[in-house]
């Protein structure tokens, strides 16, 4: 699904990361973990073909990222809203349906859009939000609508950019469950997060970015003293506590 070899990318003069190689399989859940500024968003932009790699190569769904972009959905961190935004959930989700096409939607297209929106809302458990105004929704409910909007064109790969950053614990569990459910439908998910713990139980692999380097593997292979010490180029300790993992260097890093 994604095959990256010796990838280096960045904005401006500096590289966010270099020598990063990884593979993503269809229907897999990959946690993209790393501190702020590690290059998680830059990696997403590279996968989407918005930033060309400086070195190395990347193939997405068997083609170049910019060619396959329409089969990839990107879910931004949060929905920017005016306090009085009166749009209802269904309208927000349907805005993405065949949005690259010019002209007004014809009646046939509107019927297909309605079916696609119903299916997307059902997938994320947000049917009850279809007629709710966006301004009345919680952060978790808005996040579900963002994911529903991403699904409306039936993507094969979904990139979730820090979806948990502004949510309470209950909403976090909901969003992680929704993302895990996508993989059961054959959709590959790359889920970026500062904190690995909320996705520990559902992720197949961890792609960890730090200090311009990246490593991919199972949770046990990556979230351990040896790998993280090598990535951070400084002694790092991973402490396990009741199924959760905490990473410590001189100061807590993740």
């Amino acid at each position, binding site marked *: 699904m994604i095959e990256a070899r010796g990838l280096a990318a960045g904005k401006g003069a500096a590289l966010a990361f270099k020598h990063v190689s990884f593979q993503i399989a269809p229907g897999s859940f990959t946690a993209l973990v790393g501190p702020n500024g590690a290059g998680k968003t830059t990696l997403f932009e590279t996968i989407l073909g918005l930033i060309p790699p400086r070195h190395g190569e990347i193939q997405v769904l068997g083609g170049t990222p910019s060619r396959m972009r329409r089969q990839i959905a990107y879910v931004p961190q949060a929905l920017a809203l005016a306090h009085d935004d009166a*749009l209802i959930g269904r309208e927000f989700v349907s*805005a993405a349906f065949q949005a690259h096409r010019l002209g007004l939607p014809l009646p046939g297209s509107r019927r297909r859009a309605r079916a696609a929106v119903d299916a997307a809302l059902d997938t994320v458990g947000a049917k009850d939000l279809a007629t709710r105004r966006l301004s009345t929704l919680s952060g978790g409910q808005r996040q579900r609508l963002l994911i529903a909007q991403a699904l409306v064109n039936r993507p094969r790969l979904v990139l979730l950019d820090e979806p948990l950053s502004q949510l309470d614990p209950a909403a976090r569990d909901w969003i992680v469950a929704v993302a895990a459910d996508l993989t059961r439908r054959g959709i590959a998910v790359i889920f970026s997060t500062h904190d690995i713990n909320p996705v520990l139980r559902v992720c197949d692999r961890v792609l960890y970015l730090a200090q311009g380097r990246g490593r991919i593997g199972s949770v046990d292979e990556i979230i351990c003293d040896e790998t993280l010490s090598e990535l951070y180029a400084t002694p790092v300790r991973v402490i396990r506590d009741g199924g959760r993992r905490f990473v410590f260097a001189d100061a807590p890093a993740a």
Partner: protein
Amino acid sequence: MPEFLQFAFMRNAFVATTLIALMGSLVGYFVVLRRQAFASHALSNIGFAGAAGASLAGVDPMLGLLLFVMGAALVMAWTGRDMGERDVSVGMILMFSLGLGALFVNLYSANANAAIGILFGSVFGIDAGQIRWIAITSAGVLLGLGAIFRPLRFASLNPQAARAQGIPVATLDTLFLLLVGAAAAIAVPVIGSLLSFAIFVGPAAAAQAWCGRVGLGMGLTALLALLESLGGLLLSYYANLPASSCIAALSFGLYGLSRLPIRALRA
């Protein structure tokens, strides 16, 4: 035929206002959706400088207005990458243009009335030739808006996701500002640059408060704009008040009504 339509100036005013209300309000729906009310207001006001400059140069004020507004739309698109972050650059462009306008009027005080008239509009002074231009421009703007409707709707609601899907968000932004510029250039001589908010922002803001669906909301926006503008003309005719003031008062009244927490009015 009703009494007020027996006069050619009233018939022209009704036709011109109807066309501008329909075009301006539908463009205005996206102006409000994209939170670009300040940019649209600025574009309308920048026309004053263009008209004043054209008067000074001895050419048609309409030509100067059009050039200034479209040029300003391009500069606004170029200076602000993010539609929510361009307030400062829009304000600076507006300030510079108004300063230029004041300078032009000062240099050519002999016939500054035409340029100053742009500030408030002259709906009862529209002739058949102007109506033809208003009709052509309105049709062009609405066709353009219809052509980019789907990508523009997505890019307005979720620009990051739209960009990720390969939708040219920056190009759409420029195209939309040019449509707003064209709409403002043709509307300003009729309703005035100071009162263009009444058509571009008032009806859409009220409709979006009442209606959570885009299609229905656009229909309601056009209906409210027609009510405000044609109602304003009638009020002006019978009460002998300035038409722009009547249209602005109705626009403000409907917007105020839409802000009231009346659940029954929301769809």
